[in-house]
């Protein structure tokens, strides 16, 4: 930064005019501020310059207040949007977000399970992320290393540079190798941070590491899955959990894949899942099972 200015006579007018904005913003050091005040006391030319600047700034503000008049039709339309698309709305939500898989559309706040059997079906889940990138959303990977690295390679093949997305805060990884509470907290933080930065939505793609080293035990993963639904219901996010039908146990598929997700995606169709069990009830029976 510059040295504090000396006496008013020591500072040429040409330098003072460059300090006016910082002066008006209150961003000068006390010493610089004092020097400016002293200069203005003795220099009518600079006083006029300051007054003109203030007049310009004031007039610009007036420009902003001038056309605050609202378009009634547009205002009503926005109120309608609030009424029908706000999360306080109890009715069924409009499926307006392209899922990127099987030409389906979902709603913000959805928690979906996706059952896959073939490699092609797995690779299709990269479309979920690609659709998010396309819409300027933030993507979060919550998966075991094998699944994540394959997804990143899939993204690369689709011409989406994962490294660039990471650097641009558009792609994140959340570790599942921690207790369910911590995972849930980390996902929530990711979503809230992205929204705070102005992102329109967050997509979370889960490939939970059932039985993988470092991952929680089955019961803990089930507790996580049961609670995700309520945790994201009112957040601008879509969580999709991929279930490997060939490798996972029947119990993981049934309790985790079916009972913990209000929506399932199978054979190219997104369907409301009548077998979904509300978290409270699910956790209760899970506790009884364990006992």
């Amino acid at each position: 930064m510059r040295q504090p200015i000396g006496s008013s006579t020591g500072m040429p007018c040409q330098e003072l005019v460059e300090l006016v904005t910082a002066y008006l913003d209150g961003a000068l050091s006390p010493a610089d501020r004092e020097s400016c005040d002293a200069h203005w006391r003795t220099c009518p030319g600079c006083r006029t310059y300051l007054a003109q600047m203030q007049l310009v700034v004031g007039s610009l503000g007036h420009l902003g207040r001038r056309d605050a008049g609202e378009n009634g039709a547009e205002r009503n339309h926005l109120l309608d949007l609030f009424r029908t698309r706000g999360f306080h709305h109890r009715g069924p939500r409009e499926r307006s977000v392209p899922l990127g898989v099987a030409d389906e559309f979902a709603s913000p706040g959805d928690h979906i399970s996706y059952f896959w059997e073939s490699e092609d079906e797995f690779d299709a889940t990269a479309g979920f992320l690609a659709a998010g990138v396309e819409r300027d959303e933030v993507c979060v990977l919550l998966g075991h290393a094998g699944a994540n690295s394959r997804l990143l390679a899939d993204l690369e093949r689709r011409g989406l540079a994962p490294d660039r997305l990471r650097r641009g805060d558009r792609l994140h990884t959340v570790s599942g190798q921690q207790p369910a509470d911590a995972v849930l907290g980390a996902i929530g933080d990711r979503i809230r941070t992205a929204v705070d930065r102005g992102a329109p939505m967050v997509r979370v793609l889960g490939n939970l590491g059932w039985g993988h080293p470092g991952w929680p035990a089955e019961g803990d993963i089930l507790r996580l899955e049961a609670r995700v639904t309520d945790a994201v219901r009112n957040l601008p996010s879509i969580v999709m959990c991929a279930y490997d039908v060939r490798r996972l146990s029947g119990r993981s598929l049934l309790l985790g894949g079916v009972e913990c997700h209000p929506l399932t995606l199978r054979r190219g169709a997104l369907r409301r899942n009548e077998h979904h069990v509300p978290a409270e009830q699910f956790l209760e029976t899970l506790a009884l099972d364990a006992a």
Partner: protein
Amino acid sequence: MSSGANASGAGQTATHAELSLIEALRQGNEDAFGRLVDQHHASLRRVARLYLSNRAVAEEVVQDTWLGVIQGMWAFEGRSSLKTWIFRILINHAKTRAVREGRTVPFGGVGADDIGGPEAAVSPERFHPANHPAEPGNWTSPPRDIRTSPEGRLLAREVGEQLQKAIDALPPNQRLVLTLRDVEGCSTEEVCNVLGIQETNGRVLLHRARAKVRAALEPYLEGGG
């Protein structure tokens, strides 16, 4: 660094009033939403137009912004002011859309807040040269006293047009900073927060923009005319 408020970059968070407004919105209070629209809609439209000259496209971006507010309010924690947050959503949408339409975007590229080389607020010809024996760097032709001009002269229609013209003639980055700061009334800190630029750089851009607008309006600021 300067002694300016928030020079630490900690940023200003949502006020109590804003947090209770958010709570009302979460409960579905339509009047509260209507008031929020009245407060910001015109601003959002103006700023969107700085990215997108097509009016219809800009309107779409503003609508998407409101949808983002409607659906993001449960995730909004008040880490920034409500206004900053709404503008940030707008600018994200507007940027994406402008890039898609193949337009150059203010603060778009890498090193986007590069402020470029030095720029004088006032033409150097209006000062004595640095080697002047008596008054180096002082005015040779100072601006004329505006006290002789009638009160509110600047608000006259003709001058309003000149003001708009002067804004339109600014380089895009400067125009955006000036519009957010002076037309929409954000603080410099809010502006930089919204645009993701350094506060010192933001202030330099603001300074240059204001200086250009003042220079363009100078004939109207002077008494004679």
